[in-house]
């Protein structure tokens, strides 16, 4: 059996590198890693018989037998060129660059930060000042099987701690660049905002052309009372890569989390984005865009646990599928008993550009309180013939008319991105992807 073999292989891979991982001197961490690995050993990789993985077959990942990298194996060649193409002028904001999963200080640029802010490499923190990480790092909220593997294998990532009432005005960019094939990268990012703190974090994943690798990333977000984290993930992995990511937030009173997840690259993408309202008055925004073609597969699973009253969640996902690509959307909203005055709105809209493209979308509301306002909706459609004809009747050729309509559909998510530099960058990416994009750019 494939899954048994691949499970053994993963366990052996862990045995091979365990001693090279950071924090071997920390009993709580070693225990946490071992316990996570043990849970993986019990469950194995998910199969399509698991409800949450029904439409996403990960056996392709298992077959590739990606191996974890030790610090000694990690190579930084090719990273410079990739970085130049993605972010040539790393001026505004703070830039932490990770190459093949390891922090690359020479490529990173940090601006001065407010007093008390900690921003840096998780590996360094685990080596030098691990205590503050303990309560968060082994928390399992939202974790999938891949999340367990991330806990076992995590070697580096970003660690951000924003103290009380502190605002980081410039965005923090985390760039994860992969240049090697055959490897598995396990980035772990930990973002903690104390009461009244605010920060904006952009995670950006990319790989060199045609490199085949696995990114298995986890980001944990903790917002204390009134804190606010604006989080963006831009996934532009190589066309042969696999990208599995968990973003798991836990929110205290009146805190706010905004998540924008943009999936463009990778052969297979799976995002699990979750949040839990642990106190009243929390807000979350979950926005997403996926643009896929060829044989790409993208799966977005989101879950909002309204575990306390007076919370608001707004979710807005849109996708454009071309070629023989496939998209999966599953949006779970759970309004727990007693979570009165909950406001939960969710929508997922899909635009299919080819007959071979497929989408499975499933909004899932479970409501155990009575004084709530919840809406959800999902649509799957093609380019509207009426709109297309209208544009053509004004002298616009068919290809351009279709491009304009696809642009309009996708742009609806992009314009919700408040971070201007990223919004502009995405607009450029969208123009570059569309036939006639250059002409649309000239019009706008």
């Amino acid at each position: 059996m494939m899954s048994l073999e691949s499970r053994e292989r993963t366990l052996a891979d862990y045995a091979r590198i365990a001693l090279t991982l950071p924090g071997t001197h920390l009993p709580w961490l070693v225990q946490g890693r071992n316990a996570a690995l043990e849970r993986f050993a019990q469950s194995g990789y998910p199969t399509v018989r698991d409800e949450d993985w029904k439409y996403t077959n990960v056996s392709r990942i298992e077959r590739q037998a990606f191996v974890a990298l030790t610090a000694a194996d990690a190579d930084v060649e090719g990273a410079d060129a990739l970085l130049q193409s993605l972010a040539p002028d790393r001026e505004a904001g703070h830039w932490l660059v990770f190459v093949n999963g390891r922090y690359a200080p020479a490529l990173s640029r940090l601006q001065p930060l407010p007093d008390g802010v900690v921003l840096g490499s998780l590996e360094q923190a685990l080596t030098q000042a691990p205590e503050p990480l303990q309560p968060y790092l082994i928390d399992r909220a939202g974790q999938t099987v891949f999340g367990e593997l991330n806990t076992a294998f995590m070697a580096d990532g970003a660690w951000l701690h924003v103290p009380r009432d502190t605002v980081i005005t410039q965005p923090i960019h985390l760039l994860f660049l992969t240049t090697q094939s055959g490897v598995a990268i396990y980035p772990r990012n930990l973002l903690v905002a104390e009461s009244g703190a605010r920060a904006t974090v952009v995670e950006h994943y990319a790989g060199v052309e045609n490199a085949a690798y696995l990114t298995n990333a986890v980001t944990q977000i903790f917002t204390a009372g009134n804190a606010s984290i604006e989080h963006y993930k831009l996934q532009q992995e190589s066309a042969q890569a696999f990208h599995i990511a968990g973003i798991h937030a836990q929110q205290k009173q009146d805190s706010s989390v905004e998540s924008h997840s943009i999936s463009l690259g990778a052969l297979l993408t799976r995002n699990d984005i979750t949040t839990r309202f642990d106190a009243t008055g929390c807000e979350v925004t979950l926005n997403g865009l996926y643009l896929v073609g060829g044989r790409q597969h993208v799966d977005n699973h989101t879950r909002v646990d309204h575990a306390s009253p007076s919370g608001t969640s707004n979710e807005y996902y849109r996708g454009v599928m071309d070629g023989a690509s496939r998209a999966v959307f599953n949006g779970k909203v759970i309004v727990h008993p007693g979570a009165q005055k909950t406001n939960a709105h969710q929508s997922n809209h899909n635009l299919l550009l080819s007959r071979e493209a497929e989408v499975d979308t499933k909004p899932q509301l479970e409501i155990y309180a009575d004084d709530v306002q919840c809406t959800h909706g999902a649509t799957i459609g093609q380019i509207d013939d009426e709109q297309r004809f209208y544009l053509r009747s004004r002298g616009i050729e068919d290809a351009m008319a279709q491009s304009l309509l696809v642009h309009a559909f996708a742009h609806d998510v992009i314009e919700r991105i408040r971070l201007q530099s990223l919004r502009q960058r995405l607009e450029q990416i969208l123009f570059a992807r569309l036939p006639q994009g250059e002409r649309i750019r000239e019009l706008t």
Partner: protein
Amino acid sequence: MLEIKNLQVQVEQKPILQGLDLTVNAGEVHAIMGPNGSGKSTLAQVLAGRDNYEVTGGSVEYLGKDLLALAPEIRAREGVFLAFQYPVEIPGVSNVYLLKAALNNVRKHRGLQELDAFEFMKLMKEKMKLMEMKQELLYRSVNEGFSGGEKKRNEILQMAMLEPKLAVLDETDSGLDIDALQIVAKGINALRSPERSIIMVTHYQRLLDYVVPDFVHVLSKGKIIKSGGKELALELEERGYGWLEPGADANKAASAGARATA
């Protein structure tokens, strides 16, 4: 300008136009009237190139070319303009993008230079003033959230920008209050010229009070059954369409007429 001969069109196997003949010369304004289901809108859509109408016979010659062989966008660039009965809403595509793209394509096709941003805005503002449209509508998505009157005015605005040779107005008067009707009529009249032909498809006579046609045709069951001057529209207003229907006998028609005038 336009010569339609024995045009036969069907939709989903159902014959709609059944041998329609119509000649429109440069500078003429023709009104096509007729009861619901007579094929008026089909004619308008077929002229613009809508693809779910199947032409099963006949020909349409436009400025010496076989119009039916041209893609809708080429027809538009060659100077055919359709003002839609139900203008389509296009979220995310702003009016100004649409007009810029459309005008540039049309000008290029005619061997003219594209307008620069300044010239474009100047022209745009002038035409919006003519149509009494608020400038903010420029930056809104095409027809999205527009009132019925705004949509129709927007159609005429596009027509004014694109300066077609042959304008086909499909029930442009429907759903308009009297003020909007006057504005729309003003826009259409401003475009009347010896080089331009206009076909107005309408159910009612009231638009024709403001835009006076040179010819009026009655369409019934996919054919033009009567043609005349502008006074024919008044007669139709008075007597309805019944007296013209094939098979209506003279007595019945006369008594219907008598009732209507009594």
